[in-house]
């Protein structure tokens, strides 16, 4: 299940909903990304997340499908927020359920790496010294490239 929304989410409730009535799931891994109060500059007061509606949902679906083809998964929940957020607010949630822990850990890691480099979201940070669009990080691309190397082996 994929959602792009303005309002906050409850990671615990989402995980419970994913596990509801299931006894075949042996492992569940949940990742929550939060807004930091420092990034490229200190004193980040707020953050605006813009996205390309339509393409965002397609891109997230493609990432989840890719994960499901690489690992045997029994459920995925992916929520990404857009709009105005403040430090401490949750931005993104990935919950992955599988029969075994390794698949759940790896698939969760993979989904975040691909989301950061392939889903059309853009962050604008608002700080005491002005507003700016966040630049891409080469480390995010290196992280995403790990999965392609492993695939080729």
């Amino acid at each position, binding site marked *: 299940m994929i959602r792009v929304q303005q309002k906050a989410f409850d990671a615990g409730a989402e995980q419970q909903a994913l596990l509801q009535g299931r006894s075949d799931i042996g492992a569940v891994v949940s990742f929550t990304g939060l807004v930091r109060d420092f990034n490229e500059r200190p004193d980040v007061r707020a953050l605006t997340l813009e996205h390309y509606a339509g393409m965002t949902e397609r891109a997230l679906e493609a990432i989840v499908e890719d994960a499901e083809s690489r690992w045997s998964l029994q459920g995925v929940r992916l929520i990404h927020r857009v709009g105005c957020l403040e430090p401490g607010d949750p931005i993104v949630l990935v919950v992955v359920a599988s029969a075994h822990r390794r698949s759940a850990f790896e698939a969760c890691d993979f989904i975040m790496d691909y989301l950061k480099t392939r889903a059309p979201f853009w962050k604008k940070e608002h700080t005491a010294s002005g507003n700016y669009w966040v630049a*891409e990080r080469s480390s995010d691309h290196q992280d995403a490239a790990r999965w392609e190397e492993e695939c080729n082996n």
Partner: protein
Amino acid sequence: MVDVADKVESQREAVASGRIRMHPETLALLADGELPKGDVLATARIAGIQAAKRTPELIPLCHALPLSKVAIEFRLDEPSSSVEVSATCRLNGRTGVEMEALTAVSVACLTLYDMCKAVDKDMEIGEIRLESKTGGKSGDYRRQAVSSPIVTGASRHADPGLALATAEPTVHIKCLAELRERLGVSDLDIPFDTLESADIAGLKAALIATDARFAGLNEGRVLCAVNQVMGGDQTPLTDGDEVAFFPPVTGG
């Protein structure tokens, strides 16, 4: 009226703001103090303060409050040709002072209208709202600043990529996020037959031919998507396609 006898006394403050738009000539007369009725801002300030003190006479269920402070401020905003009014009300007491601040702003705006109406009848009062509120049981409130649009990419066509049968062959272009701000363009349609070749490279060349700003499409890392799927310079285009240009993504 709500019985507030059992509520704890606390320091409460509310800030409200409003705006009156007028002709630029009116604003200039106001700034130079040349309006026939005299000192506009001083009069409106006194009117706002008086109004805050008389709020319970106007708003039926409001309590009469011993306000400890009422301050009215004006800012002349030339770009939007308007006067921004803000009112701050403070009190040590059992009930909030937002109605007092809102009333003060409203009456200050009305007084501005009255003082200027001899030269301008088109003035418009608006955007009267609570900016912040502190103290009291319901907690602090601060209006969220309105920032840039959250969703700029929503398709205008239910089915991107599907041409409208009757319309001239067209490609729909979107610039998103930092690129939109850098180029100053959000949405644009371009006739399909102006493309130098039926692909992204041809579209970029056609855009640069119409406006030199689009040279920015070839500067730094600019990504593109055709019908919401990532593409590149060689991605072919057809009539009705939606093409989005954007900077590298930074979600998560």
